[in-house]
C-alpha cells in the first residue's frame, strides 16, 4: 500500500501540473513557446500515465478493490480531491508566464534528483520509468532555467514579474522535501534537497534574483490529500466528462 501511494503521488503531481500547463495551449506568448510548453505538458502527461499504469497493476494485484478493476483512467478520473497526493506546487494557478516557467523550473529540478534516485533503485519498473522520464526532465530543466534567467535578468518589468513569482511560489517548495511516510527508504529527500538548492541558487544568481532568506513558513498537505482552494476547480474541469458520462469512450 505504501508503495502504491508513493507511485500515485508521483503520477498525481505530473498529471495535475500537466493539466495546469495545458491551460497555455493556444494561449502561449508566441507560437514557438506555445508549442514548447505544450510539448512539456505532454511529456508530463506521458510520465503520469506510466506511473498510473504501474500503480493500477499493483492495486489490482493487491486485491484491495474486488470487482472494481483499477485502470490508469479510473485512478486519474474517479478519485476525489482528498485521494490526490500531488504536492501543492503543481496545482497552483498558472499565473503569468514568469510564474509558469519558475514553477516548472522548481518542479523539474526536483524531478531530476528524484528520478536519478529511482533509476538506481530496486524496483525495476520504477527504474525503467525514471530512465525514460529523465531524458525529458533534463530538457525541461534547461528550457525553464533559461526562461528564469531571461526574465530575471531582462527588462524592469520581467524582473519584477519574476520577483513576484518567486515570492509567491517559494513557500510551496518545501513540501517537495518533506517525507509523507510513503516514500520507500531508497529515497533520500535530504540529498535531493541539497542538489536542488544548489542548482536553483546558481540559476537564480544568474537571473539576478535573490533566494528568499530567513525562516519562511512552508506550505504542505498535498501529499496527504489536503489541497489548496484551487484543486477542486481543477479536478471539476478535468474529471467532468468521466463523472458526467462514466466510461465514456471515443
Amino acid at each position: 500500500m505504501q508503495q502504491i501511494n508513493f507511485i500515485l503521488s508521483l503520477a498525481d503531481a505530473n498529471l495535475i501540473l500537466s493539466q495546469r500547463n495545458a491551460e497555455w495551449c493556444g494561449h502561449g506568448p508566441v507560437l514557438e513557446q506555445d508549442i514548447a510548453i505544450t510539448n512539456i505538458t505532454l511529456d508530463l502527461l506521458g510520465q503520469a500515465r506510466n506511473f498510473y499504469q504501474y500503480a493500477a497493476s499493483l492495486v489490482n494485484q493487491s486485491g484491495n478493490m474486488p470487482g472494481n478493476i483499477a485502470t490508469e483512467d479510473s485512478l486519474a478520473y474517479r478519485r476525489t480531491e482528498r485521494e490526490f497526493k500531488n504536492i501543492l506546487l503543481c496545482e497552483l494557478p498558472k499565473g503569468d508566464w514568469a510564474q509558469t516557467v519558475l514553477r516548472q523550473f522548481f518542479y523539474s529540478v526536483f524531478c531530476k534528483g528524484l528520478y536519478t534516485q529511482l533509476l538506481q533503485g530496486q524496483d525495476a519498473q520504477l527504474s525503467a520509468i525514471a530512465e525514460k522520464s529523465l531524458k525529458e526532465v533534463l530538457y525541461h530543466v534547461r528550457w525553464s532555467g533559461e526562461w528564469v534567467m531571461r526574465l530575471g535578468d531582462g527588462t524592469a518589468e520581467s524582473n519584477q514579474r519574476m520577483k513576484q513569482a518567486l515570492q509567491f511560489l517559494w513557500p510551496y517548495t518545501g513540501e517537495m522535501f518533506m517525507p509523507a511516510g510513503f516514500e520507500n527508504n531508497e529515497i533520500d529527500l535530504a540529498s535531493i534537497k541539497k542538489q536542488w538548492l544548489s542548482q536553483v541558487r546558481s540559476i537564480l544568481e544568474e537571473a539576478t534574483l535573490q533566494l528568499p532568506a530567513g525562516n519562511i513558513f512552508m506550505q504542505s498537505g498535498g501529499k496527504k490529500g489536503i489541497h489548496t482552494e484551487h484543486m477542486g476547480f481543477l479536478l471539476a474541469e478535468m474529471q467532468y466528462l468521466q463523472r458526467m458520462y462514466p466510461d465514456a469512450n471515443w
Partner: protein
Amino acid sequence: MNHQFIKKLYYGDIPDEPGSGAAYIAKADTAAWPLWEVFIRSKRGLDHKHAGSLKAADATMAIENARDVYTRRQEGVSIWVVESKNIHASNPDDAESFFDPAEDKVYRHPSFYELPDEVKHM
C-alpha cells in the same frame, strides 16, 4: 448605405481590428524578436536541409524553438539556425538571365564519357 455583406477573406488577409490583442502582440513580436531560418540534419552523414523559419530572441532560444517546432516527430539529429537577415538571396527577377542560359548546354552534364566496367557507384 454601405452594405456590410460577408466578405470572403483569405488566410493572411484577415484585417486587424483596432486595439485587438492579436494585432498588438504581432507588432510587438515583430519588433522584438528576429526571424531565424532553421536547418535540420535528419540522419548522421546527411546534410542539413532547410526546414522552415521561426521567431526567437537569440540563437540559444532559436535552437530550442527549432527543437520544439521541427523535431517533435524524430525529424532530426542536428540543428543549425541562422538569422534570416544574414541570408542573401538571388532576385527572382534575375531568374531568366541567371538560370535559363544553362538550358541548352547539355554538354555540361558528365554524361558523354564511356565508363569502364570497373568503375562502380557512378
